[in-house]
């Protein structure tokens, strides 16, 4: 595959795919974040000190939680719609419900991490 693209970066960033496209991209970013987390987890189990320090860093925890929770909640929506095709007609409603659930869960998780980081 050549490096030449038919779509420029600015056009790609300006693509108005709306809600479904946003969830698609965030799902990929979340999956990649979890892949990195999995590697860090294995290395910290093996006993690499720097990875253990990274695991207990609150900024790392927040990044993994924010993207990882989105991946988990969005994955649940995809699985439900995949296994119950009749619900696909309501996929926009499902995405809206997903965002509400995500904001509540991620908000609580970030609050707990910040509370711990500040010694609460």
């Amino acid at each position, binding site marked *: *595959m050549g490096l030449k693209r038919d779509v420029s970066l600015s056009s790609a960033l300006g693509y108005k795919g709306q809600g479904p496209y946003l969830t698609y991209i965030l799902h990929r970013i979340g*999956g990649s974040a979890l*892949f990195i987390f*999995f590697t860090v987890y*294995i290395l*910290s*189990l093996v006993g690499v000190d720097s990875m253990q320090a990274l695991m207990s860093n609150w900024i790392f925890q927040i990044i993994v939680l924010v993207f990882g929770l989105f991946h988990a909640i969005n994955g649940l929506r995809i699985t439900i719609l995949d*296994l119950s095709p009749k619900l696909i007609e309501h996929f926009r409603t499902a995405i809206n419900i997903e965002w509400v659930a995500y904001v509540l869960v991620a908000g609580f998780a970030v609050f707990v991490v910040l509370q711990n980081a500040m010694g609460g």
Partner: protein
Amino acid sequence: MAARTLPIKKRGFSFEVFMWAFTRFTVIAMYGLILAGIIGALIASARTGANFADILYWSFFPNLAESPLGKNFGMIILAKLMVIAFVLVVCGHGVHGVLEIWDDYVTSESGRRWARYIVISYAVAASLAAMYIIWIA
């Protein structure tokens, strides 16, 4: 919009179809294990008076934390088996996810084949290392 579905019989059986099914089943297993883990940790924290987060930490990092749960042999074996099962399904699920992203950016046949070799080898090696450490801890 009308729902569009393709019967399973007409989908054929290729690497992609197998991985699609594998990804779906592993994610369902993951949700089940998360639910069982949360319920188990809540029961254990209620019995021991320990913090819920500490219970999860003792389970997921058995070699880094001195676990008071070790007094209960059955509980510690169950926790090890559940964490190992969780790591395995996460690994299986992740392999397909990483390959799917990779396939979108590398379209050559050899590039895709090498990506499969590398990612699957990495997943197997990481799973074996994690299983060994969790079990002997």
